[in-house]
Structure formats: C-alpha cells, structure tokens
C-alpha cells in the first residue's frame, strides 16, 4: 500500500490509456480524458505510457503516503502541494513516507493527472485499469475515490530520490485556453446539414454546459440547421460531434456511447481532445475549426512523434544515470 485517501476530491478516478478493442460489444475506450498529460506524468516518474494514474477533476483529493514514492502532476493546475507546500507541476517529485499530497485550489484547466512510480495497482478489466463510471467497472471498484480507500502502488526498481527533479520539456506542456478553438474533420454525416448549418457550426461559439462529463460535452449556442436530423444508429468514435434535432452539438468524450442515432457533423481531431478535456463545464466556451483528414493526421503524427521521442530519450537518460551509478558503486568498492 502506498496512498491512503483522506479525501476523494470532487471526482478522482483511476485511469490509464483505456480499453480499446471492445467497441463492438458496446464498451467504450474510457481512459484519461487528457491522455497526453497522463503520458507525460508517467514518463516523468519512469512508468510505461499506459500505467494507471489518477485523473483529478476540478478539486483535488488529499492523499497520505504510507511509503516513500515518486510522483508527478500534469494537466490542470489545481495547486499541487506536498505537506502544505506548493510543488512544481510537470516535474517528478520525491515524497517521503507519512507525507500528505493535497491540492490548494483550481487555477487553470479542469483535469490534473497524478502518476506514481510503479503505477496504481487495481485489477485490470478487459486489459485496462481505467474506471468506467456508468458501468461501475474498472479502476477502484468502478467508482471514484472516497475517504478510507487505499491505493496500492506497483513495484519500482532502483532508488527514487535520485529520480526527482526530472522536468518535461516545455513543448510537451500544452498551453490551453479556457475558450479553445479545436480542430475538427467534417463528417461523416456533414451531408445531413444545410450549408448554413455547417457555417454556423464552424463559426459560432458554444458554451460548454455544466452537465458535460466524461461521456460527452453538451454545448449550447446558435442551433445547427439539419437537412435530416436522424440516422440509423451507427458507430461513434471519440470526438464525434452529434447534433440532435434541437441543433445543440454533443461532443463524444472518452466514456462515450459506442453507437448513436444523430448525424455526426464533424469529428474533433485526436490531438485536440485534451483541449476539450481541460474545458471547464459551465464556464468554458469552444469554437470549431474545419480541417481535412490529412491535416489532422499530420498533427497526430507530429504530436505523438514528439511524445514518443521524448519518452525514448528520457528512458535513455535514465538508463545512463543508472549505469553511471553502478559504475560509481563499483569504483567505491
């Protein structure tokens, strides 16, 4: 055991990169809403990209460490603190046994990610430790953290204190806006909308309603005019923007329903989903910018490529540090 939950915060769940491959059974991918932030946090503490961490929403939990551990917090700035002292985000931090990790208050963004070296150990469900709240499975008994919970940490090799202070390069810390413009590829059912409807969608600003959650973001703004407001239900990928008859768009997020019967005007590009994940329901406003698939895929390759390169390079750094340490040990002997 390594983390004892004193307060669960507003909504804190165990998430990894999700359980792809089960869409045909109606099971959504789930996983971290800002998958990018989780991957960066994992790398900072030396975990594989898909290790499970905590997704912390709006107001952070209070966690006591019963073992020394190495943590990193990325994503939303919720004022990360250890024993009441603010600690930098985007950096690996060594936390002694008997310390308290807490969050002082939200400054920016919606979802913070806390990774712990070794990863959070909960039983995987269909290959993933992600919590799927509507189905009450995955993560810690399929629910959010609450006081009294104990989180086990996976095994870690090597000393932890030496690994603190590792920072993510600035280009991997996205700068988000409370009111972002996200890119979206028109379709697959853009032909179900009038030209005016399409223009409205790509020009207007939409408020993110407070009922938005991990399943979907409900938007409110100028109604998007349809030619046909219904389709025979078919598959819905994450980021798909469905427009029901009232013309108010719904963006499918990571716990999304796998099929739906409203036409999909556009699909938000994968690398911009984290921007939506950091929008604050009830406060943020979003705009959509049309791009073609090639541009979306170029952006995907660039962003994932940058992340992979850094993950590899910093893994090499770590191996180097460990080799130097071993050499030093040998010389001492």
């Amino acid at each position, binding site marked *: 055991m390594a983390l004892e939950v004193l307060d669960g915060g507003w909504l804190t769940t165990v998430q990894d990169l999700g359980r*792809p*491959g*089960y*869409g*045909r*059974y*109606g*099971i*959504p991918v789930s996983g971290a809403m800002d998958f990018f932030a989780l991957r960066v946090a994992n790398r900072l503490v030396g975990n594989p990209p898909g290790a499970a961490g905590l997704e912390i929403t709006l107001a952070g939990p209070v966690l006591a460490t019963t073992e020394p551990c190495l943590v990193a917090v990325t994503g939303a700035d919720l004022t990360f603190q250890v024993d009441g002292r603010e600690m930098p985000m985007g950096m690996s931090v060594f936390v002694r046994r008997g310390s308290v990790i807490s969050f002082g208050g939200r400054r920016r963004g919606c979802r913070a990610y806390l990774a712990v070296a070794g990863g959070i150990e909960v039983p995987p*469900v*269909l290959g993933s430790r992600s919590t*799927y709240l*509507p*189905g*009450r*499975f995955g993560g810690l008994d*399929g629910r959010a953290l609450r006081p009294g919970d104990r989180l086990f940490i996976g095994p870690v090799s090597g000393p932890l204190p030496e690994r603190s202070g590792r920072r993510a390069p600035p280009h991997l810390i996205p700068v988000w806006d409370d009111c972002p413009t996200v890119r979206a*590829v028109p*379709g*697959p059912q853009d032909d179900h909308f009038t030209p005016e409807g399409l223009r409205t969608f790509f020009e207007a600003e939409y408020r993110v309603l407070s009922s938005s959650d991990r399943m979907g973001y409900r938007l409110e703004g100028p109604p998007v005019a349809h030619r046909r407001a219904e*389709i*025979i*239900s*078919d*598959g*819905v*990928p994450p*980021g*798909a923007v469905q427009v029901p008859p009232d013309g108010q768009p719904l963006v499918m997020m990571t716990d999304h*329903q*796998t*099929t*739906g019967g409203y036409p*999909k005007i556009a*699909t*938000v*590009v*994968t690398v911009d989903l984290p921007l939506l994940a950091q929008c604050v329901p009830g406060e943020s406003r979003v705009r959509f910018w049309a791009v073609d*698939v*090639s541009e*979306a*895929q170029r*952006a*995907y*390759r660039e962003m*994932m*490529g940058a992340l992979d390169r850094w993950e590899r390079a910093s893994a090499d750094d770590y191996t180097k540090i460990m080799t130097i340490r071993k050499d030093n040990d040998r010389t001492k002997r």
Partner: protein
Amino acid sequence: MPFVLLFVTFVIQMFPRILPAGDTALVVEFGDRIDPQIHHQVLALARALEREPFPGLRETVPTYRSLLVYYDPRQLLWDEARREVAGALERSAEIPLPEPKEIEIPVAYGGEFGPDIGFVAAHNGLSEADVVRLHAGSTYTVYMLGFAPGFVYLGGLPEALATPRLPTPRPSVPAGSVGIAGPQTGIYGLSTPGGWRLIGRTPMPMLDLRRQPPTPLQPGDRVRFIPISAEEFAAWQGSHGAGSP
C-alpha cells in the same frame, strides 16, 4: 450524355461509401435503412478485415448499416486506409459468413420484470398473453451491440408488437431487461437509464467482463426467447451466480 453518365455513376456509387470519421477511423456505409441484406454486407466486410487485417487496423464496430473501422494513423494515412478497406470490400463479396449461432434466452415476461407489458398489449390491441406468445414465437437477428456495454439490438420484431418509447426515459433499467422501441426489440446489458418499453427480463448475463468475448451474443447471431416463470428466473440466477458486473 457524359453528364447523364456521371449522374448514373453517382447514384450507383452512393453505397457503399467510405467516409472519414476523424483522424483514427473511417466508416463504410452500406445503406440508410434497417435491412437484413445491408447488415449482411456489414458483417461480410468485418469478416474480410478480420481474416486479412491490414497493418495498422485496430478494431471494427459493426452496426445496422455501417462498419466503423479504427486504424492507426501513424501506420497508414486516410488514403491508404481507404484503399485497404476498398480492397477488403471487394473480397468480402466472396466471403461466406459462418452459420449463425442460435441462442435461446430465458425471459420472465410481465410483472415486476416487464412493467410495460400492459401498455404494449393495450397499444396494439392484444392481451398480455398474446404479447408473450408473439415475442417468444419469433426468431431474431442480432444487429448490433452498442450505445452501452452489452446492449443488444435485435431485428425481427413482429409488427403487431411495435410500440413507441417512453416519453421520458427511466433513470434506471435493470440489467437483462427486454424492451421494445418502435419496430425494434433489445436487451439491456447493464443497468442504465433507458426509454424502451420493458416487457420482461432475462437472468442470463448479457455482459461478463471476465470472459473473452465479454458478451454471449455477437452481431449475426440468431436469438429465440423462452418464457420462464419468476421461480425459474430465481433458480436460474441461483445456479449461474449473479453474473457480472
């Protein structure tokens, strides 16, 4: 003349059509209605891709009239993915589908298990016994699993049973509930909110997360409902465990 030709080509090529669904998926639409022939084409393409997956293929999601194909945009771009899928589409015409599995599903009709059976009967001018007889007397095809984990959409509901949805969905429908929505019937895999008219409930789990695959029914399977009593329902649950989740 060339214009006419162009027009004819356009109409003929309406379906199947391959469309981008963002940067990690594409969708192949075979039509815009619920139809066994169209559904057969969806399953044939899914099977063609399963038998000869292209590098970078991640997953397919078959539905009534389209196949959603996820791929890794780091391995291939949209144009290449579209070509791969178009190739599979050609092959799929010759691929025989396996004999559909026939699965019998025990259902306790009416009472606490099917609180809307009275409404379905009244709406269609039938008795509750007629509803059971008609519903259990048909063979259904699994069209798709979706919206929520393990939810099963079935085709083949007798027209005499078609009933509109509830005006306001229930906040919670028990897992295993069998319902009717318009011309469709289906089974809830999980306890979720829902607006279908409930006529019964099966004790057979529609979702078992410890199993691979996690659902007993797959698209293309044939289903028959076997009426059981409340006692049999309890006994079934007792002998098979409560199921998961």
